[in-house]
């Protein structure tokens, strides 16, 4: 996924410039705003794929900004950056109309992965999910919970199925370990050890074993990606 239009609203000048540069280097278009009012004006008029909003902003704070946008029927997905990384802050952020929440300090790879997922969700056929996914010769049926690769059925545990489902739904996108813990296990803390890796490697053993081309790829320093390398 490339060429997203991203609006970054952040009052820390250095962080703002760094994020803008980093997003542009990742192949996206990034606009910058240094306070809440500027950010609000840009977000309302410009067609952005994703908003990255700091929670504490001068003139108009991040949550109010998003709430105002939603009242104006601007439904651009928004990711909230916050120094207050606590559970209830996350809940408040999402209640205000935010779509994702990332506590500071974060790594850029984590932010990028989340922004790309949000952008994809916001565009395209977005909110209605297909009943089945296909990546290369792998097929996953969400209704019958059946997974086949090259016509051969693969038996997965329920959790393994959800893991694969999340990876496949975001095929071609980097999915971080934190994102997997959030969506597959519904916890938002940082998995300190390699718990997620072990789950992925088990899944990988079932999905990729005996096939020439692996579908589950490890992206170093970031997470995982399901991708068919044949193309």
């Amino acid at each position, binding site marked *: 996924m490339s060429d997203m239009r991203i609006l970054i609203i952040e009052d820390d000048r250095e962080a703002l410039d760094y994020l803008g540069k980093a997003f542009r280097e990742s192949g996206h278009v990034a606009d910058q705003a240094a306070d809440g009012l500027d950010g609000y004006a840009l977000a309302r008029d410009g067609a952005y794929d994703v908003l990255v909003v700091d929670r504490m902003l001068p003139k108009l704070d991040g949550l109010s900004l998003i709430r105002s946008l939603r009242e104006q029927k601007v439904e651009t997905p928004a990711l909230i950056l916050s120094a207050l*990384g*606590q*559970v*209830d802050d996350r*809940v408040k952020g999402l209640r205000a109309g935010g779509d994702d929440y990332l*506590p500071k*300090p*974060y*790594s850029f*790879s984590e932010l990028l992965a989340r922004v790309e997922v949000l952008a994809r969700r916001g565009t395209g056929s977005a909110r209605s999910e297909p009943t089945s996914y296909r990546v290369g010769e792998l097929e996953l049926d969400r209704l019958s919970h059946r997974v086949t690769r090259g016509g051969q059925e693969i038996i997965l545990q329920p*959790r393994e199925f959800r893991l694969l489902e999340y990876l496949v739904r975001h095929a071609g996108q980097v999915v971080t370990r934190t994102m997997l*813990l959030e969506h597959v*296990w*519904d*916890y*938002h*803390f*940082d*998995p*300190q*050890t*390699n*718990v997620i890796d*072990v*789950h992925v490697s*088990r899944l990988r053993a079932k999905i990729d074993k005996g096939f020439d081309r692996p579908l589950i790829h490890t992206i*170093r*320093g970031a997470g995982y990606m399901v991708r068919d390398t044949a193309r």
Partner: protein
Amino acid sequence: MTLQGSYLPKLFRATAFKLSFYYLVTFAIFAFLALGYVAWNATKVLNDQIVDTIEAEIAGLADQYRTAGIRRLVAIVDRRARQPGASLYLVTNFAGERIAGNVGSLPPGTLNEAGQREVDYGRAEDEARDHRAIVRVFLLPGGFRLLVGRDVEERARIREIIGRAFGVSLLLVGVLGCLGAWFVTKRVLKRVDDMTGTTERIMAGDLSGRVQIAGTGDELDRLAQNLNAMLDRIGELMVGLTEVSNNIAHDLKTPLTRLRNRADEALRVASSPDQLRTALEGVIEESDGLIRIFNALLMIARLEAGHQNTGMADFDVSEVARGIAELYEPLAEEAGIGLDVAVEPGLIITGSRELMGQAVANLIDNAIKYGSKAASSGDAQPVLVRALREGDAVTVTVADRGPGIPAEDRDRVLGRFVRLEAARSRPGFGLGLSLAAAVSRIHGGTLTLSDNGPGLRVTLSFPASAAAAA
């Protein structure tokens, strides 16, 4: 002498001295009122008695006069007047001349009217009226006057005695009170000075000082005990702070050094873009590790500050325990020990599912880390995960067969960043247990470390939700 000079004003300013002084004045006023009342009452009783006696006597004498005439009266009065005592008698003729009696002189006009009054009089033949008496005058037929009275010297004497008693007692109260105030104030001042001295030494940096406890169990002792307990706590915090900073320095130094070395090595050795890329990815990985450490530290700090009050709701501990155990199952199997999970269904408590999940995850993570040590020596024992209801409490227990923690170190390891020396070289941030402890505290629960013989058993205990218990 400067000491004396500064000591006295201090004595007068002391609360104890002021209090003593106020008490002294109050008591003096009370004593005055009490004695005054006694004196007034005594006088009144005496007066009444005197009046009664006079009434009775005068009635008797009048009777005598009526039945036996003036001669008989004069004879009786004459006889009675000769007896020593405080009784006064006088009979006069129509001209006011004395016929019988022991009263020498009276204010003019006293005999003109019947009735009772208080007068100065002179005794027998004495002209000077230097005594005082209560008298009653009775007019007899034929111009005769009969006077019966009582000297009130006695009453005056009682008044004088009470007055003197009051003076003496006031003096005594004053002197003793002042002495008492001085002693009490000196004693209290000394102890307060002690405390002030100790706190001054502590403020100057010597944390080892403690306030002396007199052992009397009074309010100053209680204050001293609390002060000492507070000092102990401050001492603990100081030690903890030093330990934490040392540990933070150590734990952050290691990954920072590794980070620097990797970058350095990449600069020196890597020649192809691929090699550089790998090196940079390694650098990012190290930085992510650092970010994790900071996140965990921040979180513990916030939990310990007790801000996590919103976002509390009833949730199912059973689901958390099962879910987290399931999350860690593959890791435990990979470590060669596995998990032995037994969870009672429907354990509801009030709090944050998210935090509880993280706490349980930390405990299982630790158990696998330390439990797998034993596994490598061929003695593989699964990590025990239990969630139970015990009375009004819900407990979550995670037990391993690792090296355990010696009893004397158990309190210490709950501190932030503390890892026992033996474990320092192992991966992990040493924050897991302290985070779990902080989480259990904000849920109104406890975290207990005990011996699993061998190994460590960590038990989280929470009050079950009131709604769920009903």
